[in-house]
């Protein structure tokens, strides 16, 4: 399938910061989440795609056409910011029509019809004559979104549009974004520093760090299999255990630091950079780590004993922190906890399927 947007070797210098050789492409109907800590270059990348920043080197193609040097007003790419940036001296309606007016089509019947439909979808039809200062944060973002997509750009760029909103409003805005993405069949690049948002919305995920792409792929793939320690930490990877790789009976095992236990056999292939003796981090998402009271390992699982250090209760589940050849964290449902009657100091069996043991080369 032909890509809608292709970014090739994009580099930008902005003061002491630089974006280095960013490459990625976006197909029609993709919803790419760009994730990264503050200062990783997310906004600069979006602005360069919109044409608001000159490139140092590299190229951008849009619909097969080279747009590297095209000014933003000719790119037809929608852009919505974290601060909704509504013009305070214009009403909601005038704000939404701003782009149409700039293109000289604001009075056309089909544009006005389009606006009525949009404000209906966004749930802001009752706000049209108001000024921005009388709107809530969520309402402003809806207006800003309507303004950005009024003229049906094929691509919408979102710069942390939800991060200034309270959790309830954020949830409803996420639903709205998902709805717009499908009903408008618009492609979206959405920048955020919140990985749960990225997993809920994205069809693709790009993790940016210090101006370079650290990892890209399907959101869950990135979530469960981060390629580096920094990505794993940024995605709040649980059960990161330091150790070395060893081979036994031509199978691959993980040996935690300061222990004689061998966890395995692992299902990962022993291909470079994974070699016997190499220092690695093992990562097991706590949702993949199960807890048992019987001493019999569940079939197909790797298991080892551990002692419960402490339990912390949440509304729906209990986080169990164990110690045994490393510190482990898992969670069980309240119902399961009631059944097992677990307490601090109990010894349990931890089990994981080999394919859920993820290795990160240090």
């Amino acid at each position: 399938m032909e890509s809608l947007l292709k970014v090739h070797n994009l580099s930008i210098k902005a003061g002491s910061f630089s974006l280095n050789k960013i490459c990625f492409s976006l197909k029609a109907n993709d919803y790419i989440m760009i994730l990264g800590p503050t200062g990783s270059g997310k906004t600069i990348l979006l602005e360069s795609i919109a044409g608001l920043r000159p490139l140092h080197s590299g190229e951008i193609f849009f619909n097969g056409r080279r747009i590297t040097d095209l000014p933003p007003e000719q790119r037809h790419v929608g852009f919505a910011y974290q601060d909704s940036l509504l013009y305070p001296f214009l009403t909601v309606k005038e704000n939404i029509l701003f782009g149409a007016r700039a293109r000289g089509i604001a009075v056309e019947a089909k544009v006005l019809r389009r606006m009525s439909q949009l404000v209906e979808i966004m749930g802001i039809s009752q706000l049209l004559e108001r000024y921005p200062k009388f709107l809530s944060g969520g309402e402003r973002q809806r207006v800003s979104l309507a303004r950005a997509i009024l003229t049906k750009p094929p691509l919408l760029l979102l710069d942390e549009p939800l991060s200034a909103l309270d959790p309830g409003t954020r949830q409803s805005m996420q639903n709205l974004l998902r709805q717009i993405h499908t009903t408008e069949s618009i492609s979206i690049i959405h920048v955020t520093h919140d990985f749960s948002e990225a997993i809920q919305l994205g069809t693709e995920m790009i993790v940016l760090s210090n101006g370079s792409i650290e990892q890209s792929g399907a959101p869950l793939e990135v979530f469960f299999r981060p390629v580096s320690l920094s990505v794993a930490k940024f995605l709040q990877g649980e059960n990161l255990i330091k150790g070395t790789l060893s081979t036994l009976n031509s199978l691959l095992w993980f040996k935690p630091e300061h222990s004689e236990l061998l966890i395995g056999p692992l299902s990962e292939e022993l291909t470079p950079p994974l070699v016997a003796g190499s220092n690695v981090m093992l990562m097991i998402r706590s949702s993949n780590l199960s807890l048992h009271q019987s001493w019999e390992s569940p079939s197909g699982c790797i298991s080892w004993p551990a002692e419960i250090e402490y339990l912390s209760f949440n509304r729906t589940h209990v986080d169990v922190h164990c110690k045994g050849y490393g510190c482990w964290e898992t969670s069980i449902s309240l119902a399961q906890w009631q059944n097992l009657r677990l307490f601090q100091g109990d010894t349990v069996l931890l089990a994981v399927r080999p394919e859920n043991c993820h290795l990160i080369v240090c």
Partner: protein
Amino acid sequence: MFSLTDWSPIFLSLRTAVFAVIAVIILGLPLARLLARREFPGKDFLESAITLPMVLPPSVIGYGLLMLIGKNGLLGQTLAGFGITLVFTWWAAALASTVVAFPLMYQSAKAAFKSVDENYEKAARTLGASEVRIFLTVTLPLAWPGILAGVVLSFARALGEFGATLMVAGNIPGQTSTIPVAIFFAVDAGDNATAQTLVAIVTGFSFLVIFWVNRWAKRQNY
């Protein structure tokens, strides 16, 4: 006690001040916009030169203008070749007012443009607006309160201009005798009634303008 036989100083002053304000808007706004967000070598030097008339004694400005548009001045000589004389005409008074009002307009406008969040302009660009359209429909409205302050300040300064005006335009009734000049010569001639009337008019008028602007600015906070 209040009496005025000659109303011409009032109309002259208004005409001069309005001319000066229009001139400083036309010259000052684009320059302020240009310099507000741009750094280049020599910028500090240029800005100091632009601001200089604000702090120089009016007599220095008057002398400088005479060197420029006087009979033997740089520009004066050239203009004389076309049969045009500026000194001791209304144009000289208007020029003097413009020069002293310019820094006030420039400084206010520059601060106003600087305070505009650049992202508003970026958003407008992504919505398809051209640079000129953005300046007129986004930057100007956002900077408007600051620009208005500049308009008022420069109007007041132009209206009150005395020293430089006296030096380059003199005191020709009906032509260059603006309110401040007329007050000075009325007092000098012991005509207190005229002086008091002009003082009352100019004070009342200035007060009303500032009062209205303050009220207006209060209503404009978005």
